[in-house]
């Protein structure tokens, strides 16, 4: 709440300059781009002790694909994904996500926007240990205020979809790591968000399970009309990406097409 | 989480609240307030002067005493006997006095015999004198002889006088004995009732003993002697309405008629019947007559008395009040 209030005046100035640099891609943003960042910067703290986590990010991520943010730890990829998902406020620059200028949203609006538009997959799953798989998966619907039985039905369908239809009432502690991540993915998708952010989805899993999870995410990405943004430093899963943004020291150093982009897809 | 175990804690909590509510509702062991066993005495007057009264006979209690010490010989009355003035109550052993009386009576006989003797002697002397005094011849008897015989008559007369006096003395002695015998019989000092009898035949009595042999009183009408605290005495006025209540049955109310006020204020004398009370207060004693009432009242009974009182000074009074009785 506080960060939103203090950052509001800072962000107002760059917005006016944003159209100038983003002019060539404006039409693409409207139709194709899920995420469009221009000179996006994020500073933690102030004056001497300030940490510049993002130092002017220019990035376009298209709708309907799986994009990866890669780079060494401390390069700012987690900060970037936080800003993109509407969790952190940017310090300066321009950031339009799913057609919504993030600088224009108040904190409660951002919360509501996240609720409706974003699905999350976390590195450590963040499943509630006291809730069953289906209850965990139903949480985003419950947050939206969907009725309990309807929410549970939706969650069960989604668990079926990720291949866990037989473990609906298991507690997370009774599931393997891969199964837990599948529950997390079901949770991220259950309310049909248009942006799914995945933070190191495979780092807590062994190689094979990670590959299976990535296959699942790839499948989801192939359905189109949805942007998957995966943060990772695991080069073994780069092959699943349509687009890879290499980051270092708060900047995007390289954007390259992934292997998957060559394959026939919705693009 | 299974359905059954999920509800265990709420169920236990519900039971706990139930137990608490029950405990609160039961509260402490409580008891209803007792009704008094008997109605306590209440005053009907707006302004009341309360006192403690003691029932006494019209004559007050008369502790009948004996004038002479001795052993009780005979009893003519029992406790509760109604007697008239002069009736015998009891007598003291009279044997020694009776014997003395007999002796004195015989002394009277001796004296009267002696008197008869002297009268005979006089007759004889007079006869002897007549024989000579009628003789005309003076020579027949000597003058000396005549005078001698005259003296003899005079002497006989004198002896009669002595004998008469002796008889009177003996009679007086008998009379004295009779009076003393009479004193051994104690008689009723007036009409009334024997209230208490503390002697039995064979017991020793003596004048001035602690416990009166017999308590007697005129109970045709009863008086009530009321003690009024000296601090309250100023509120008392002769002749105002007053009532007495029986102890233990305050519903019985006996009207009182003013008789007199004892002129001397005396130290309070235990009316609670106990001797342990310290005399720390002086009381004004007022005597009332108990008006006829169907209730039985006994001599010596304590009563609660309410007397209509003078209102207290206006300065202390919040509102002036009328009186009722």
């Amino acid at each position, binding site marked *: 709440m506080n960060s939103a209030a203090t950052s509001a005046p800072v962000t107002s100035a760059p917005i006016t300059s944003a159209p100038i640099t983003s002019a060539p891609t404006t039409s693409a943003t409207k139709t194709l781009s899920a995420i469009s960042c221009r000179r996006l910067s994020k500073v933690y703290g102030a004056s001497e002790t300030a940490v510049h986590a993002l130092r002017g990010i220019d990035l376009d991520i298209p709708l309907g694909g799986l994009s990866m943010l890669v780079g060494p730890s401390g390069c700012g990829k987690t900060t970037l994904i936080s800003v993109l998902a509407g969790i952190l406020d940017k310090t300066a620059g321009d950031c339009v996500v799913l057609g919504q200028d993030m600088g224009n949203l108040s904190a409660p609006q951002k919360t509501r926007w996240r609720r409706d538009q974003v699905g999350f997959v976390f590195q450590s799953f963040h499943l509630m*240990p006291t809730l069953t798989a289906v209850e965990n998966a139903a949480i985003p619907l*419950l947050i939206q205020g969907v009725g309990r039985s309807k929410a549970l039905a939706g969650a069960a369908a989604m668990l079926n979809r990720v291949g866990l239809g037989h473990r609906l009432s298991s507690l997370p502690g009774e599931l393997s790591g891969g199964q837990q991540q599948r529950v997390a993915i079901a949770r991220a998708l259950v309310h049909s968000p248009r942006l799914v952010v995945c933070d190191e989805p495979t780092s807590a899993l062994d190689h094979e399970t990670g590959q299976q999870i990535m296959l699942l995410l790839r499948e989801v990405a192939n359905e189109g009309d949805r942007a998957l943004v995966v943060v990772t430093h695991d080069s073994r899963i780069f092959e699943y990406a349509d687009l890879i943004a290499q980051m270092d020291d708060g900047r995007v150093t390289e954007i390259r097409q992934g292997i998957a982009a060559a394959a026939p897809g919705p693009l | 989480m299974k359905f059954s175990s999920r509800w265990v804690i709420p169920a236990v909590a519900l039971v706990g609240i139930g137990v608490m509510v029950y405990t609160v509702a039961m509260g402490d062991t409580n008891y209803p307030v007792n009704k008094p066993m008997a109605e306590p005495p209440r005053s009907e007057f707006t302004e009341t002067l309360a006192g403690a009264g003691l029932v006494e006979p019209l004559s007050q209690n008369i502790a009948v005493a004996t004038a002479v010490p001795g052993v009780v010989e005979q009893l003519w009355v029992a406790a509760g006997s109604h007697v008239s003035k002069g009736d015998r109550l009891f007598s003291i052993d009279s044997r020694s006095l009776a014997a003395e009386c007999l002796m004195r009576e015989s002394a009277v006989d001796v004296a009267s015999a002696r008197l008869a003797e002297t009268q005979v002697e006089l007759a004889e002397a007079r006869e002897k004198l007549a024989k000579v005094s009628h003789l005309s011849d003076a020579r027949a008897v000597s003058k000396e002889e005549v005078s001698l015989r005259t003296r003899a008559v005079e002497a006989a007369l004198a002896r009669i006088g002595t004998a008469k006096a002796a008889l009177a003395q003996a009679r007086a002695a008998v009379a004295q004995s009779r009076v003393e015998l009479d004193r051994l019989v104690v008689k009723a000092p007036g009409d009334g009732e024997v209230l208490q009898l503390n002697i039995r035949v064979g017991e020793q009595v003596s004048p001035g003993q602690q416990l009166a042999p017999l308590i007697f009183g005129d109970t045709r009408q009863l008086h009530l002697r009321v003690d009024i605290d000296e601090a309250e005495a100023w509120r008392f006025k002769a002749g105002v309405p007053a009532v007495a209540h029986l102890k233990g049955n305050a519903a019985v109310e006996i009207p009182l008629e003013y008789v007199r006020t004892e002129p001397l204020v005396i130290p309070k004398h235990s009316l*609670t019947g106990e001797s342990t009370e310290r005399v720390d*207060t002086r009381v004004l004693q007022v005597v009332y007559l108990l008006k006829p009432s169907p209730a039985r009242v006994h001599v010596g009974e304590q009563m609660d008395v309410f007397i209509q009182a003078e209102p207290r000074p206006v300065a202390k009074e919040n509102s002036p009040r009328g009186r009722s009785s």
Partner: protein
Amino acid sequence: MYSVALKMLTGDRLKYFGLIAGIAFAAMLIVQQASILVGLTRQTGAFIRDTAQADLWVMDPQVRFSQDQVPLRSTVLQRVRGTDGVDWAVPLYQGFNRGHMPDGTSFTLILVGIDDATMIGAPPQMELGKFADLRRDKAIFIDGDTAATKLMMKRGGGRAIRLGDRFTINDQEVVATGAYRGRESFFWEPVIYTTYSRALTLSSSDHNTMSFVLVKIRPGQDIRAVQKNLVDRTGLKVLTNDQFIDVTADYILKATGILVNFGLAVILGVVIGSLVAGQTFYNFTLDNLRHYGALKAMGVSDGTLARMVWLQAGTVAVLGYGIGVGMGSIIGWGLRAGGLAFSMPWQIPAFAFASIISVCALAAWLSLRRVFKLEPAVVFRG
């Protein structure tokens, strides 16, 4: 989301039971200590409550509590009877005396002498015998509930005094002709009833022996006005039943240090219970902080989070409270069965509820501060 909140709470049995137990312990401590204090306070007024047939008590100004022995002059009774607004007045004797049981056991007793005729001041109920039995020769009443412990013959008798037994008070013989039932007294000494005049005979004192005058006011009279009249008239202390109960409780509780001891116990109960409950709940929230972070990231508003935490706090408060007061009540039954003081008016559970709720509210508020301060971005850091 509220079902999620409740599942978060009840899912971890250990923490859930710990929370409930902590709060139950606090509630029990508060209820029990406060009830004992109230019970003791009530016991100090037991004699006055048992003798409450009248409205006012007239006593010497030096009397500090109901068992204090400062006698009055007997003429005071008449003066009281002659006071405006007095319906009736009867004397009452009360004092500590020494008795000897048949086997020689010596004991101290509280002798109460009630008005012979009206028996005003009599104990509330008879367990054995009738009130009229007090009029029999040498009659006294013993307490039927406590005789077994308080009138035990310890020097060979091997049993308690019971009906028909003869013993002595100040070397004068008395006979137990009845057993009454009354409120539990604060004083250990057995209370023995007899008539006023017999009490005067039995009491060893050689001075005035009237302890109190019990006064009933006339119907419709203002009790305060009559009280003032009596004070003006007699110069003595005149108290209503409630005032006398308060004065007695005040004196005894202060003189014995009970107030300080049990007051401290109640405060400690509140403080320790609060700390335990508050700390447990706070820890519970901290343990769940990462989940709150995830929920925040997923778009749960601060308001919803607050309601979730309030719901959790309220649930544990109500459940813990219910179990705690239940346990406290049951312990109270045990105490009462053992003859100890325990009295729980509704104010005590209400006070306990208020304390528990406020403690949980405080804990919830402290927890919420942490939740609100939480950056949802933490969910991306490991």
